[in-house]
């Protein structure tokens, strides 16, 4: 167990190094100079050179790279060009906003998925099952930039029941989290369903049934608990996917999270913020996967044995 963990940890470090290296080199090969966008094209060249020197752009590439890695190890993602604020400080509040949205969307989709998963497993092979299958594939096929505007038009513009934008009240969570969570809900309802169907075929379920327990009691008490394991894996990985999904959702609903920060930074050519956001998202994604993996190892005896 310990050696597996150690191995995973070494892998993690390697992956983090890879992520940061890719981001670093991408950033350095961009056409155009950041000095122009901050100081203006018509600024004197002396000031531009001074500015570039200040942010270390004048040093040879390998020196910049070493410095970048060194700062990264110390948890320093650099500074914003326009305001000189620490990127970490800029990212943190935005990350919290994204996590708020993502967690609400996550809860929403888990509840929905469990419900539909149970519904279709209980009616395995019947028309309700087939209908939910079709419906969930349809839901997966509708990306957030279709669902979002439709919801917005219907519920904010026409019916005026939910706020148009922002993150100020409970009701403002409704539309963004449906937008963000719908395809995850559809996807995981299928996972839960197939997990349930598998489990329902096993001996102990038959025993439970033969003991005279009602169908729904068997489903909820025995089967669901065991079917959750495969679903947990998928859901854990999807938490990371939700994070990247927030970029589009935040853009639609004007949510001040990490995703809209990335897009703002793209427009302002704040390289440090872009790479900071990309790295943070990747790290969260990797950690989610790792956590799922470890949980899976700890609690599933079959995996533990191998």
């Amino acid at each position, binding site marked *: 167990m310990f050696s597996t963990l150690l191995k995973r940890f070494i892998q993690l470090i390697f992956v*983090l190094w890879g992520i940061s290296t890719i981001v670093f080199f991408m950033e350095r090969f961009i056409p155009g100079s950041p000095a122009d966008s901050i100081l203006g094209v018509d600024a004197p060249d002396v000031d531009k050179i001074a500015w570039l020197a200040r942010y270390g752009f004048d040093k040879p590439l390998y020196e910049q790279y070493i410095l970048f890695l060194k700062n990264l190890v110390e948890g320093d993602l650099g500074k914003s060009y326009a305001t000189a604020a620490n990127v970490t400080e800029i990212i943190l509040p935005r990350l919290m906003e994204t996590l708020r949205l993502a967690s609400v969307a996550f809860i929403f989709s888990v509840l929905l998925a469990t419900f539909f998963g149970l519904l279709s497993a209980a009616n395995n092979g019947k028309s309700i099952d087939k209908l939910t299958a079709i419906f969930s594939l349809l839901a997966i096929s509708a990306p957030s*930039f279709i669902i979002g505007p439709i919801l917005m038009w219907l519920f904010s513009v026409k019916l005026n029941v939910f706020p148009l934008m922002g993150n100020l009240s409970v009701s403002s969570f409704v539309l963004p989290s449906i937008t963000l969570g719908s395809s995850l809900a559809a996807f995981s309802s299928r996972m839960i369903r197939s997990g349930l169907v598998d489990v329902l075929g096993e001996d102990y379920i038959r025993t439970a049934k033969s003991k005279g327990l009602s169908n729904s009691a068997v489903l909820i008490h025995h089967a669901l608990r065991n079917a959750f394991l495969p679903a947990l894996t998928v859901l854990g990985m999807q938490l990371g996917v939700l994070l990247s*999904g927030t970029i589009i959702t935040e853009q639609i609903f004007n949510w001040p999270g990490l995703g809209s920060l990335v897009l703002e930074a793209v427009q302002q050519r704040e390289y440090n913020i872009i790479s900071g956001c*990309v790295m943070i998202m990747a790290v969260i*994604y990797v950690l989610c996967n790792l956590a799922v993996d470890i949980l899976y190892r700890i609690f599933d005896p079959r995996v533990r044995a191998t």
Partner: protein
Amino acid sequence: MKFYFAKKFFQTFKSDKVSVVSFFILLFWILIAIVPIVFRKFSIIPIELQNRLTDPSLNYWFGVDGNGQSVGLLIMNGASTSLIVSLFTVGMSLLVGIPMGACAGFLGGKVDIFISRIIDILLAFPPLILPIAIMAFFGGGLLNVVIALSLTGWVSYARLIRGQFLIYKEREFIVAAHSLGATNFRIMFKHIFPNIISPLAVQATFSLAGVIISEAGLSFLGLGVSQNHVSWGGLLNSAKDYLTTNATLAFFPSLALFSVVASLNFIGESLRLSFDPKSLGAGRV
């Protein structure tokens, strides 16, 4: 063996009306997408400013957008963009992913470790994040979109193929071929490869849908193909500005995108069921 699969495939297909409908929808869109590529006349969309923002009518079945361009023609051209981007991206991904996965799975050892680490790193980025970063750093354009999406797209194929090769490497008929003196290359592509075409086809179908969504998503964020190409995502982006005043503008591009992606997903699902009846997942992974 092959015949068996074909028969099985058509059986499933016949019993599955949804897939038949999907197939015809897809065929329809492919035909639509080819029109502007073949007939240049349709790829030039006249700008008639005096007709801006008119609702669907007999002259303009799908309305006119904020630039005075016919939404019908725009959707048609958007279809070709989607077709080109998705085919090229999936093609490029296969072109890179198959040899990479095959080498990693078959040769093993250091090659495997090296390729697997690259895969690990690329998989560490949540979907769409790396393409967004690439587009943000290097700017829009058809080629850039294909590159950005392929750079992350090949990984899933490589992983799939690697796994399959690991399994088949140990099979008897391969070991036998080895002992008969067949070269690695021959074994890889003559003996093993035909066996893994079916999971590959399933994966490719789902990723066509995925690429179409990704391309539209990038364009929706303003980071996709440039102004000289029409993209459904771009249409949705500009339609969003008129959501309060001309909501119909968003309707038809949404419908187009949705119908194509849903059809691809249904066909992929149907393919998956025919090749591997036990798997009961849903949609693209």
